[in-house]
């Protein structure tokens, strides 16, 4: 490895400065505020919060609904992943299941709630079909369904990634040794996947626990911690200290979950070579799992189909005639189109700058010998742990009086920090797989370090750069929690505008805006696919780069996701 150069040091220090200013300081300031009592340290705010029945109830509600949804999600995710990896149903059907289960990721979570209302609410099509509501969609039930749909893609991809590394030959050995089906299932599937299953549960739990979009749209009177935090900060009388306490209460489980996730990674059995053997399955098993998966897929498609029905009907559900009227209205509204442009600008800049930051962090971490470069790894663990809402609140508290307040810049920075972990790990894994002698070779061929990075490293990591762009772009476009405290009238984004429209019951507009988000994400994904299409000159097997990771589950999730996107087109 090359000796540390001045350029490397400058980049490293700049990177650390960014994360100190926009991650460490805001969190420390928020923590300080939670203990601050007119300049003195005190536990008074914590005491008040603990004595507040409503707040405690919202915390307990959050735990309850997140726990149950995580349990359901994990089971469903396991079923779908098992169907894909351990049955012999057709490859195309498997692709459809993958597509359907990951589709919701392309929409803001706040949209899920409105969709559920149109399906299970008083005027919902299921209600109209049955004649009366199956259950009240507002509150616990709505949250539960919303969280399950929201966390299913992440849980599925996590388990699927684990299953990809389960050696199918062991199933064959178990069959040849005449194991009973349950014993075979335990030893060849369940046991090697303990880590992935536990990880999927924890990930689903914490995603639900910290989400704001779904409770904002469908929570009703069922208070959860995210809505309580929002009301505390942006209600009629904002209480900064109390808000800081609630944010810390949200942060703590996230930190514990992050630590548990890392711990469970060790339980995952990773086979070095999975070989290329036929999956062992039976007709009964195929049929059973085909039916189960079809039900799940049908449920998801059924729910999300409303998104493309409502905006194109004259007056859903009373007049179902087709119309372009609502779409034309929205496209004609200058205000909404301005918000759309804002969103695109923020998403694009987040993605462009995000590539630079994550690439710099990864290259310093993997391909330089800077002594304290391990700090970057810790930063990535921290950014993975801090919920978007907590980060957004910390920014609100710290930068409230600064010129950053209400700017696009603060939204972009929030996205960069909030979504840093996965792109960083993607870049890191890709860089680790590249020949470590390239920089030395470059130097001997009279390149400067930066020149080798430009001429050799970047062309070889092009695919990952495109993946990172798509990742940042999509997430910046759909995030609600991260930016809900930071948007202003001038910097309003689509995802937060949807929340505003909710107050005026403008559901047609909400659905059309959601469709615009979905379409934009599909465009970016397709663009990524086209650019990453294997060419004659492509030699780096990037699939391998992603899957042979030992660094945290999230990168595996995303890697699997992007591979699927590329494969399915």
């Amino acid at each position, binding site marked *: 490895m090359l000796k540390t150069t001045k350029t490397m040091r400058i980049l490293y220090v700049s990177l650390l400065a960014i994360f100190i200013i926009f991650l460490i300081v805001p969190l420390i300031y928020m923590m300080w505020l939670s203990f601050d009592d007119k300049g003195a340290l005190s536990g008074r705010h914590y005491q008040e919060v603990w004595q507040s029945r409503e707040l405690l109830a919202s915390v307990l509600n959050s735990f309850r609904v997140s726990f149950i949804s995580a349990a359901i999600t994990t089971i469903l995710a396991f079923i779908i992943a098992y169907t894909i990896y351990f049955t012999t149903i057709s490859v195309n059907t498997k692709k459809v299941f993958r597509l359907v289960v990951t589709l919701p990721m392309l929409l803001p979570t706040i949209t899920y709630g409105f969709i559920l209302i149109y399906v299970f609410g008083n005027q919902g099509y299921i209600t109209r079909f049955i004649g009366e509501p199956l259950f009240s969609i507002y509150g616990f039930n709505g949250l539960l369904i919303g969280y399950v749909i929201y966390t299913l893609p992440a849980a599925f991809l996590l388990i699927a990634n684990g299953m990809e590394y389960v050696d199918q030959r062991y199933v064959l050995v178990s069959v040849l040794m005449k194991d009973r089906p349950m014993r075979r299932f335990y030893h060849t599937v369940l046991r090697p996947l303990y880590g992935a299953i536990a990880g999927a549960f924890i990930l689903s739990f914490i995603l639900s626990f910290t989400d704001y979009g779904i409770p904002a749209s469908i929570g009703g009177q069922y208070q959860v911690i995210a809505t309580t935090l929002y009301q505390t900060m942006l209600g009629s009388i904002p209480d900064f200290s109390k808000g800081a306490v609630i944010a810390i209460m949200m942060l703590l489980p996230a930190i514990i979950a992050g630590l548990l996730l890392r711990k469970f990674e060790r339980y995952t059995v990773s086979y070095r070579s999975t070989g290329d053997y036929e999956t062992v399955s039976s007709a009964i098993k195929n049929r059973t799992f085909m039916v189960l998966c079809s039900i799940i897929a049908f449920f998801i498609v059924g729910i999300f189909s409303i998104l493309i029905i409502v905006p194109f009907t004259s007056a859903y559900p009373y007049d179902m005639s087709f119309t372009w009227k609502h779409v034309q209205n929205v496209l004609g509204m200058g205000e909404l189109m301005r918000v759309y442009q804002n969103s695109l600008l923020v998403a694009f800049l987040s993605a462009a700058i995000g590539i630079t930051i994550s690439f710099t962090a990864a290259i310093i971490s993997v391909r330089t010998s800077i002594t304290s470069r391990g700090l970057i790894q810790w930063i990535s663990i921290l950014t993975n742990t801090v919920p978007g809402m907590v980060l957004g609140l910390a920014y609100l508290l710290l930068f409230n009086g600064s010129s950053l307040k209400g700017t696009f810049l603060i939204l972009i920075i929030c996205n960069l920090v909030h979504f840093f972990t996965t792109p960083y790990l993607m870049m890191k894994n890709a860089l680790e797989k590249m020949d470590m002698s390239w920089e030395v*070779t470059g130097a001997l061929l009279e390149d400067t370090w930066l020149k080798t990075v430009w001429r050799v490293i970047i062309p070889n990591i092009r695919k990952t750069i495109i993946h990172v762009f798509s990742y940042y772009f999509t997430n910046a476009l759909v995030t609600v929690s991260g930016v809900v405290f930071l948007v202003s009238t001038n910097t309003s984004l689509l995802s937060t505008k949807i929340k505003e429209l909710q107050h005026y019951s403008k559901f047609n507009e909400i659905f059309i805006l959601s469709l615009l988000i979905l379409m934009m994400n599909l465009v970016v994904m397709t663009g990524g696919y086209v650019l990453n299409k294997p060419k004659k*000159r492509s030699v*780096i097997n990037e699939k391998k780069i992603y899957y042979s990771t030992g660094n945290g589950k999230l990168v595996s999730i995303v890697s699997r996701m992007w591979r699927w996107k590329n494969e399915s087109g």
Partner: protein
Amino acid sequence: MLLVENICKSFGGKEVLKDINFQIGEGEILSLLGPSGCGKTTLLNIILGLTEQSEGQVIYKGEEISHIPMNKRGFNIVFQDFALFPHLTAYENIVYGLKNRNAKVQKKDVQEYIDFLELEPHLHKQINQLSGGQKQRVSIARTLVMQPKILLLDEPLSALDGVIKESIKSRIQQIAQDFGLTIIIVTHDPEEALTISNKVLIINEGKVAQFGTPQQIMAQPADPFIETFILKQLHIKRKNIYRLFGERHA
């Protein structure tokens, strides 16, 4: 020409090289031979300027060069895995370094090396389309066009098989002869070291076990390590060949 004096190197308190001394002249081939982990690659890196020695001196043509950074020493290396840039063609790899010299690179500038290494038919191939031997030759050509003062080769033959190995071996000898280039090779294979080099430096546990010509080493092994580890391997090989072909053919 190249004098290595009293080189010592420690990593975290562990001494990996102890008092290494040797000297080689222009156009000579030196092999650094020893078992895995004996410190030969560390010594190569010290000569290259990639690693700093803890003690001792590296003197090139009378000048102490330890303080000179790697990229200014004018030495060059061919890595074991060749370190070719996979997004470039063989030709683009060969002329990569020349583009840093602010001159328009033309094929005639490198034709001598292309012809010498018989790379003409492969110039426009991608790296993944080349065989191990072809990659090795592209890597050598890329290094030679930079006209290094000393060429270092890290395990140049270990990734190659039989016949190709022999062809690369003779080419390395030819490079030293035709271009008058001093070459230092790292290897763990006694046969390789003793058949390719003018001089062999055998390292064991960070210390020089013997330094001399192949003939000297064969005739007068300096210690039991050389006899048991180095020469015994050759005897076993010889025995196997005799068994297969009979003494006359071997």
